């Protein structure tokens, strides 16, 4: 039976500096394996759609414009993504990876959450189509 069993911890802490991370002012290095924003390599992608099929949050859409000419666009909903990296491991071509430097993803509007991966012309084609539908 003792009293004040944690006094030694408290007195030791009195002489230590605060450990609070001053986050927005000082950015500490993130772990190497941190899963952040998805990256896509258009060269290797065959448009098989396995990533979209396995995504538990339906964050990936594969929009096919022309199947024969292999014209497709990958739409990535950043706000739905749970950053589980299943798509990275489902991809047989190794064209997906999760970056460990882009992880500050908060935004005040919805636009940054809607990312299109693909050829520039194809993306414009998709965007033109969606605006035509909206109007």
């Amino acid at each position, binding site marked *: 039976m003792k009293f004040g069993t944690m006094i030694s911890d408290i007195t030791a802490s009195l002489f230590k500096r605060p450990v609070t991370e001053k986050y927005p002012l000082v950015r500490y290095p993130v772990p190497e394996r941190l899963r952040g924003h998805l990256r896509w390599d258009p060269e290797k992608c065959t448009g098989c759609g396995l990533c979209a099929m396995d995504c538990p949050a339906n964050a990936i859409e594969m929009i096919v414009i022309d199947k024969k000419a292999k014209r497709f666009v990958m739409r990535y909903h950043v706000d739905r993504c749970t950053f*589980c990296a299943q798509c990275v491991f489902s991809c047989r071509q190794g064209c997906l990876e999760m970056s460990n430097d882009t992880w500050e993803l908060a935004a005040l509007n919805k636009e940054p959450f809607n990312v299109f991966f693909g050829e520039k012309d194809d993306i414009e084609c998709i965007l033109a189509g969606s605006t035509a539908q909206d109007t």
Partner: protein
Amino acid sequence: MTNRKSENMQANGKSERFIVPIGPQHPALKEPEHFRFTVEGEIVTNAYVRLGYAHRGIEKATEQRNWVQTNYLLERICGICSHIHSTAYCLGVEKLAGVQVPPRALAIRTLVAELERIHSHMLWLGVAAHEAGFDTLFMYSWRDRETVMDILEQLTGNRVNYSANLLGGVKYDIDQEIADSILEGIDFLEERTRHYLEIVTTDALFLQRTRGVGVMTKTQAEVMRAVGPTARASGVTRDIRVEAPYAAYPQFPARITLATNGDVEARFVVRIEELFESHRLIREILANLPESDLRARFPRRIKPGETIIRVEAPRGELFYFIKSNGSDKPERVKVRTPTICNMSSVVKLAVGHQLADIPLILAGIDPCFSCNDRGVIITRRQNKPDLWTWEQLRQYGIGYYDGNNK
């Protein structure tokens, strides 16, 4: 004051019996559950629990997702023991599909499960100390818990919901750098854990809150089907890692930790001693990590069949039933979490204690309320189908909160 009031009450011929409702907001932990304690003076004479405030329809939702997606859904049943849910599901599905998982993957799964056990038990140590009014222990144990959280982040990339499991293996390997930092962290944690064991067994004020409180005898624990550290604190030898070793436990056998007193102090001692066992297992796994691939090929469709799988979560036995009908989606996934098994002991043990001891008795089983909330719909009408679709369940939920279905 209480005595005078009590005399007045008796003089008036009225019984001094109150019902104290606790919850659904924040009964002991920050999760919704409702308790009703009948008190006579300070003493609880009857207890009632109402579960189900956090029912999310996860079991039903698995039927709408393919085998791969279900893994991540089930990982989110619990925020604290997420990995063990995923491990149970993966082991079950792999058994059903007849896929042989590489030994290194099984060892890494077990390693992450033990790291998770350390993080869960240290979290519990803090919460239970907080319930006993010992906030210094709460703060320091949570500070030290950051060490294991950092290890998990370094190993898998996330502090919670690690997503370390894939069907057929694991995602992340362990290299020398990570192994060294795990060992360094474990050395620090072992020293701190020894200090905490000394505190919870010697601190005079703390012992007044824990020693002899909520005593559950071995017979009671067996009758009430208690599981996990709650049962082991009463001397019941029940640990799935020892009884039915899964994953890499056949190669790295775990030793059971037991106490006999069955009170809250014994639950502290059992959980803290389990930490030492986890430290030992982690060191052993790192020293003898088998060399092999990390992933085996996994089929998209699984042949019809059903299986059960039991694993030892930090809170006790976790049970999964998985049924396949040959498609790429599960036909039925049934989950039984340890909290539901231990909840009856809270209701039983609360009787006879002071109201002030109730939070500690409740925290003593390490409850995880949103884990245990499941629904069963029994319809007695013959012509109506018993199975609901996901959309029907969703509409029922919306209607329930609008007040239409109550």
